[in-house]
């Protein structure tokens, strides 16, 4: 696109989970379909994208983080990127808050915020019928909610589904972590008497939701594993908000 002298409306930062993880790739595809449906001209960095550095930074490897940031900022600035949308709250937080000081200044948007804007601008419409009668609960990702105070956009998007939205007893600012952040995704948990995602899945079961709406590929994996732990995968499904909207839009 850049070679053709065109500039996209937004750059879709796919992230490592969204690029490589089989489950998260479905989220990536669902979101891309939504962008196409809404006629959003978007670009991806493809093979030029690299890890944002979040897991390195949060586990204390500041060197590796800054090396990654440096490389990514060079690529992003070379393409004169202004707006970035991402389906990963970890990339979202890092690009939005930690890149500017290192020379990367972009408007960074989480995909739930972006979808919400598309709805508000009338570029995207859905019939929520297929979810009628379902109970949906939203699991707040730490790096979207507490870390960046985004609580309403994902909920507003879910309103479009014509389903019953229920909150878990711990939600929004007091939402419980899924257990993956701070690089926990990549290691075994320390010794304890329970896994964090199991604790969180108990909240889900208590809410009697049929669907857990996630906004983060890490949370998605953790919650899916949590539901499996209780052998409830037939009753409770874990889906990203982009997938739910794409499903409602028959994409």
């Amino acid at each position, binding site marked *: 696109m850049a070679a053709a002298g065109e500039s996209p409306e937004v750059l879709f930062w796919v992230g490592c989970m969204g690029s490589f993880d089989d489950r998260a790739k479905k989220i990536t595809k669902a979101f891309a379909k939504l962008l196409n449906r809404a006629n959003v001209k978007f670009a991806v960095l493809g093979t030029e994208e690299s890890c944002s550095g979040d897991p390195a930074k949060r586990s204390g490897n*500041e060197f590796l983080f800054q090396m990654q940031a440096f490389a990514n900022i060079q690529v992003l600035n070379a393409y004169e990127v202004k707006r970035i949308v991402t389906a990963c709250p970890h990339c979202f937080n890092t690009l939005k808050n930690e890149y500017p000081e290192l020379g990367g200044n972009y408007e960074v948007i989480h995909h739930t915020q972006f979808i919400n804007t598309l709805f508000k601008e009338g570029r995207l419409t859905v019939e929520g019928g297929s979810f009628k009668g379902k109970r949906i609960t939203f699991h707040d990702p730490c790096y979207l909610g507490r870390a960046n105070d985004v609580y309403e956009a994902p909920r507003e998007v879910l309103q479009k589904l014509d389903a019953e939205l229920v909150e878990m007893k711990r939600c929004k600012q007091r939402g419980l972590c899924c257990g993956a952040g701070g690089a926990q*995704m990549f290691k075994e948990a320390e010794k304890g008497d329970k896994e964090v995602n199991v604790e969180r899945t108990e909240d889900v079961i208590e809410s009697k939701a049929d669907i857990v709406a996630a906004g983060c590929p890490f949370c998605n994996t953790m919650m899916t594993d949590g539901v499996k732990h209780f052998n409830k995968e037939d009753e409770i499904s874990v889906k990203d908000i982009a997938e739910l909207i794409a499903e409602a839009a028959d994409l």
Partner: protein
Amino acid sequence: MISSIIFSVLILTTAVIFIVRIRQINANINLGRDIDLSDRPSERWKTMARVALGQSKMVARPFAGIMHIFIYVGFILINLEVLEILIDGVFGTHRIFYQFLGSDTYHTFIGFFELLAFLVLFACVAFLVRRNVGRLKRFSGTEMTAWPKSDANIILIVESLLMIAVLTMNAADSVLFALPDATVMTAGLSHYTGIEFDGWFWFSGYLTGMLPNDPTTLFYIERACWWFHIVGIFGFLIYIPYSKHFHIFLAFPNTYYSKLEPAGELTNLESVKKEVELMMDPNQDPFAAPAADAIPAEPQRFGAKDVTDLSWKNLMDAYSCTECGRCTSECPANQTGKLLSPRKIMMDTRDRAEELGAHKRKNGAEADDGKSLLGDYITKEELWACTTCNACTDACPVNINPLNIIVDLRRFLVMEESAAPNELNTMFTNIENNGAPWQFAMADRANWRDE
């Protein structure tokens, strides 16, 4: 006359002991690295007004929040009555404000303070019951050893006794005032004449029935309570800076210096930035000698091993902590039985600053006691259990940031000691080689488009 002298000596002694201790704490906080937090003053004042003055985060838990507001408001406003007591003490007067306010206003004035005193007493008793009978989970835990538990009880008991003393003092006084002046004069208590009220004070009135009618006995009860109350306050003032109760002072500066950036934002280490820039700059001569006039900077550690590597704000956080445990009770790692407890991180940091500060006062500023925060106080297992979810920073009623300390200690482990868990080292290698935390080829990054 003699009592005025004794009283003045007590005030001065208390002030000296208090100031000496405050200077110690100030020195201990300044063991930390210097950071500049002088930006955005108006935003900072607002945060302080909202969080400390306005108690906005306390009420997230309504019962504790409201009880705490009783004690907080009582504590601040009752100082007006303490002012009267101080003036009386120094000048040998009795209820000096009565002269200025007149009977009716003074009656309401004292009545209002009795209401506050009653609410404080009620809240303290409720807290004592909750702490010692209620078995709330967040009041136990490995860091809640004998001292933190007694500290909490001492504070609540002392505050209760002070309030009981005030109420009893008022009751005895009002019975004395109600006695015929002649009777009081005969007992040689001319001080207690000339003050008249309609009826008893609002709350202490209920105690008057228990008191005798003999002016001399009433006098001794009133004086005993008066001295107990004010000497109790002096003693408490000396005690506070050795206790978790110090939060009543530090809550204000600590919220003023709150982190104003989004909670998810971590600082970019300046020292690392320089290294990365050097590494990435093709025009750099790797063998260049430093410029002759360059001031050799003191080598700074990457990350933190001890309190001297943390910032002064981290240490102010530690001294502001009142060990309420809201952080720990919200911590996902702690809830699932891991060793990590954000409250312990803060208490360890404070205890280590205390220890190192005392060592340096004794043996000179350069003295090193061979111990460190990491290792001697905080273990790796605690640090690696953190999910960086910010539940602790969000829960803290005075905006303490345990996460900042955890990440700084992790930075030391990874960058100075290469002591990350093996799986994380694998993740690092993958990012370095493949640009992703897993072993996938960079070239496969866009495969999802064709699947």
